[in-house]
C-alpha cells in the first residue's frame, strides 16, 4: 500500500471538513473489508483515509414512522442479530446473515456495503424488494434515494464523492405480506452467489389476489436488478400456480450476467428464472405460515372454549 494520511473525525461535520481538505483522492473507510483488500492490491490509492469509525450515533436500529430505520454505520452482524429486526423484518436479518463470514460481518457496515456497490452482494436484492430507501448526507445536507435507483454500474452509485450513507429506511410492510431471499451458492457458504433472488409478496384480505409484489436479483448484472416486468405479470392478478413460473421467465429477460467460475452467462440466466419462481413460492409459503394461528394461541383458544363449556354445564 502506498502511504496515506489516516484521520478519525468525531462528527459528520468533521468528516466533511476532512474530505474537503484532502479533495477527490480521499476515501471514506468504515469496516474496510473491501477497501483494504483493494488497497493491498494497489487498485485504490487514496491520499487520505477518512475513518467513520469514531463518529457516534450512526449505528442505531429502531422503529420510525411505522417502518424501520438502520444507521449507515450499523454492522452486518448488528443487523443479523438485532432482536428488533428478527421480530419485525426476519427476511432482512436472514439476508445479512448470508454475507461472507462472521469476521467480515463484524466489521462491514450497512452503508459501506451499499456504497461499495458490488452487484454480487446479498443485502441489495432484499432491500430493493422491501422498498428500502437510502439517506445520503453531504456537507450541504441530505437526500433520500430509493435503493432501486441507487446503483448505476459495477462499484458505482449515484453518490457524490462527499456523500455518506447515513441511514437505510425500510417502510412498514403492508398486512398480508411476506418475503424470501434465496441464494444459489456455487461452492462454499461464504462465497458470492451464482444468482440470488429476493421477492416480497402482498396479498389482499382474501389472500387470493396479489396486491403488490417486488422482485430483485443479485449477481446477474453490473448492478442488482429489479425485475419490473416480472412484477407486472403478477401485480393485481389472482394467485395462480403457473403465475410464478411465468414471472420467472419474464425475469430472465431483465438479466445480463457474466460468465465466470460461478457459472456461464447462459446458465445464470436460466437460474435467474428458476430462483425468481422459487423465491416467490417461498414468500407465499412464509405468508401462509404467518397466517396460521400460533400453537400457543391455539392452545389458549382451546382452553377458553373448554372452560366456557364447563361453565355452561354447571
Amino acid at each position, binding site marked *: 500500500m*502506498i502511504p496515506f494520511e489516516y484521520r478519525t473525525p468525531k462528527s459528520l461535520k468533521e468528516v466533511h471538513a476532512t474530505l474537503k481538505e484532502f479533495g477527490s483522492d480521499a*476515501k471514506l473507510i468504515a469496516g474496510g473489508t473491501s*477497501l483494504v483488500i*483493494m488497497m493491498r*492490491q*494497489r*487498485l*485504490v*490509492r487514496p491520499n487520505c483515509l477518512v475513518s467513520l469509525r469514531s463518529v457516534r450515533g450512526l449505528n442505531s436500529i429502531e422503529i420510525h414512522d411505522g417502518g424501520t430505520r438502520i444507521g449507515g454505520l450499523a454492522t452486518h452482524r448488528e443487523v443479523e442479530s438485532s432482536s428488533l429486526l428478527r421480530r419485525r423484518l426476519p427476511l432482512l436479518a436472514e439476508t445479512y446473515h448470508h454475507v461472507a463470514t462472521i469476521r467480515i460481518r463484524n466489521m462491514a457496515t450497512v452503508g459501506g456495503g451499499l456504497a461499495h*456497490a458490488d452487484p454480487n452482494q446479498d443485502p441489495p436484492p432484499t432491500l430493493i424488494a422491501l422498498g428500502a430507501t437510502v439517506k445520503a448526507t453531504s456537507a450541504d445536507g441530505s437526500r433520500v434515494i430509493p435503493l432501486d435507483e441507487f446503483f448505476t*454500474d*459495477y*462499484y*458505482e452509485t449515484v453518490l457524490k464523492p462527499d456523500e455518506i450513507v447515513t441511514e437505510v429506511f425500510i417502510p412498514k410492510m403492508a398486512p398480508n405480506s411476506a418475503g424470501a431471499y434465496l441464494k444459489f451458492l456455487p461452492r462454499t457458504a461464504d462465497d458470492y452467489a451464482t444468482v440470488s433472488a429476493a421477492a416480497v409478496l402482498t396479498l389482499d384480505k382474501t389472500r387470493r389476489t396479489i396486491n403488490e409484489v417486488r422482485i430483485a436479483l443479485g449477481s446477474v448484472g*453490473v448492478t442488482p436488478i429489479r425485475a419490473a416486468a416480472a412484477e407486472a405479470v403478477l401485480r393485481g392478478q389472482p394467485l395462480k400456480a403457473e403465475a410464478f413460473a411465468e414471472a420467472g421467465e419474464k425475469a430472465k429477460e431483465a438479466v445480463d450476467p*457474466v460468465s*465466470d467460475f460461478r457459472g456461464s452467462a447462459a446458465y445464470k440466466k436460466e437460474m435467474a428464472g428458476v430462483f425468481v419462481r422459487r423465491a416467490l413460492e417461498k414468500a407465499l409459503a412464509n405468508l401462509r405460515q404467518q397466517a396460521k394461528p400460533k400453537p400457543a394461541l391455539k392452545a389458549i383458544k382451546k382452553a377458553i372454549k373448554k372452560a366456557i363449556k364447563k361453565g355452561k354445564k354447571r
Partner: protein
Amino acid sequence: MDVPKVAKSLPGVESVSKIDDKTYEGALTVRVGPIKLNLQGKIIVEEQSKENWRAALRAEAKDRMAAGAVNGKTNMVLKELSANQTELLVDTDVNILGKIGEFGQPIIRKKADSMLKEFVENIKKQLTA
C-alpha cells in the same frame, strides 16, 4: 490513417505522441468505481493499407503502480457496401494481465465492452463528418 485521432477516439486516452513512423506513445486512464488505472504504453501500427482499407494496431500498456498490464490487438477494415454505405469492422482482442486481470475479470470485461462501444461510435462520427 491518423493514429492519434483514432487513439483519442477511445475514451480515457489522455495523450498520444509519435516516436517514429510505426510507433506511438500514449497514456490512458480507466475508472471503475474507486479503481483508477493509469496505463502508459506503446501503440504499434502493424498494418496500414490504403488500397485494402485495413489497419492493424497493437498496444501494450502498463499501470504505473504495477497493478497490472493490458495488451491488445485491433484490426479495422472498411468495406464498401454501396455508393454511400460503408461498413466498419473492428475486431479487438484484449488481454488483461496482473492484479487487475486477476481481480476483476467480469468488471474489466464489461468496462472494456463499453469502452469499445464508445470507441466505435466516435470513429463512426469522425468518418461520417
